[in-house]
């Protein structure tokens, strides 16, 4: 059974804009535009899109914070619009930019308070706290007030806090935003373990495509409220990633090279990046480059997923 099922979900907001001194113009914005999707138990799904694409709004619709303008939302088999408290009891939510913890109290106190908020049995709670303290390496700062934690420590605390009541799905809204490389990696390995060992279903929104490549089996791309792609990471690379990039280091700086079937996407001093289509070989492109200017070194790059995604935002899906 699907853990999350959205069926033709629309969310419209009315925004007022000042037009003249007193007059306000109202217009309706579709933040989410007829989105249908379903997530099965055990899946780890990346939900990506530029700022304002509708990612956070979708998460708010799934978690019962917002009510859809049209369409149906079902999470853990219930309607978060009608039975908000039933649904929130069975889901975990982390908003990367907002804390769920008690700011001035030790991290341990937040865990204890959440036990009462969710009505978790004391034994179960102790087992869970011990497990997550271990997995997320929280022992060193359990008694530190949350406001004194580093962002990375706090995010690990947030993850534990969202999981203590044994949710069936975890919603993460930009869980790695602002984290340093080490903290990002700690969060990622924890999520991988959580999914692999406990079968936790995860939906995460992110701007960091390394998150997606590292964590997600499936990728949802949204822009202007519309779901553009619902595919696997491998599938999207295959479909859009046919183009590769030849990086050439020339003997000396040269104006952008003119090569049929390839075009320069970037230059940096004597180095130039040429994107070429799948029907050309790297050797062919290199031969044509070498005919124009002496080459010192070369390398071939697969199209990074970031470029693919940027092109989907800019040009739309194929």
């Amino acid at each position: 059974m699907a853990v999350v099922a959205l069926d033709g979900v629309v969310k419209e907001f009315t925004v007022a804009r000042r037009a003249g001194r007193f007059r306000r113009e109202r217009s309706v914005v579709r933040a989410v535009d007829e989105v249908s999707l379903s997530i099965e138990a055990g899946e780890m799904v990346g939900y990506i899109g530029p700022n304002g694409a509708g990612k956070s709004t979708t998460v708010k619709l799934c978690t019962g914070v917002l009510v859809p303008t049209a369409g149906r939302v079902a999470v853990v088999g219930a309607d978060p619009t009608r039975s908000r408290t039933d649904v929130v009891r069975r889901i975990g939510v982390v908003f990367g930019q907002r804390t769920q913890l008690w700011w001035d109290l030790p991290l341990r106190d937040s865990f204890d308070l959440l036990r009462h908020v969710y009505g978790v049995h004391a034994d179960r709670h102790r087992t869970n706290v011990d497990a997550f303290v271990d997995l997320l390496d929280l022992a060193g700062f359990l008694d530190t007030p949350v406001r004194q934690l580093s962002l990375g420590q706090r995010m690990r605390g947030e993850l534990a806090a969202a999981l203590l009541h044994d949710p069936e799905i975890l919603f993460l809204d930009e869980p790695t935003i602002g984290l340093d490389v080490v903290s990002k990696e700690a969060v990622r390995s924890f999520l991988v373990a959580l999914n692999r060992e406990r079968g936790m279903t995860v939906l995460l929104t992110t701007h960091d495509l390394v998150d997606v490549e590292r964590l997600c089996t499936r990728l949802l791309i949204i822009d202007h409220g519309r779901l553009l792609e619902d595919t696997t990471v491998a599938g999207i690379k295959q479909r859009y990633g046919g183009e590769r990039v030849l990086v050439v280091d020339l003997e000396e700086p040269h104006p952008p090279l003119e090569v049929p079937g390839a075009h320069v996407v970037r230059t940096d001093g004597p180095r130039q990046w040429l994107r070429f289509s799948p029907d050309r070989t790297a050797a062919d492109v290199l031969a044509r480059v070498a005919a124009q200017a002496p080459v010192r070194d070369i390398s071939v790059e697969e199209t990074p997923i970031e470029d693919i995604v940027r092109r989907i935002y800019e040009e739309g899906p194929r």
Partner: protein
Amino acid sequence: MADPDRTGSHGWRGELGVYRRLVGARIRSDWQYRASFVLLLVSQVLVAGLDLAVIAVLFGRVDALAGWTALEVALLYGLGGVAFAVADVFASQAELAGRHIKAGTFDRFLLRPLSPLLQLSAGEFALRRAGRVVQPGVVLAVALAGTDIDWTPDRVAMVPVALASGTVVFGTVWVLTSSVAFWTVETQEFGNAFTYGGNHLTQYPIDVLGPWLRRLVTFVVPLAFVAYFPAAYLLDKPDPLGAPSEAALLTPAVSLALALAARAVWSNAVRHYRSTGS
């Protein structure tokens, strides 16, 4: 259909327990800033003492107001004041709903299996407000001891009933006026006109207000039920404008009706927030 925003599966006993813990967490949080916590408490006690002195001077000078002796007016003041102060402790936090909506932190309340109002009341609990109960409490005690009340059982019962109902009435006014924030976001001033303004009204016999305003306070914002009718009942005073003294017996019913209305409006406001997201 049961409204999910009102009842968690904790049951009301469980919710009360969670409320107690959340209030405890808030007090411990404030205690992290010890100096300011202590200073606020001390200043509250000083203000309460000063208020008492002012009241003593005031009642010492006035003999009678619209046929009420100074002590009888003190009874009126005490009943309204205690109810207001207790409501201030538990319900005035509702007026911070607008700020949470603006800051985007209201969502957090919706992500937890508890009523948002309960979380707001507990999360913004301010222990120092409890100090404001002292002054009207002392006035009430003095007035109850000093006025000539024929203590029949129904009059004895009237005191806690009036205080409880009054607290509910003030609390609902706070919740009702704060609900407007879900539509307009900026309403604290609007609400204060009713809450703090209402508190001042109850401290005077409503005869001085004139018939139009009097009808308004009796029926539109039934603040008269908070102090005036109960006090008149305790003192066995006939209402100069002809309301039967049994009007005081309606006090719990009026507060219950208001509470139901406030609950409906608040739920509606939260529903509005969830559908507009602003």
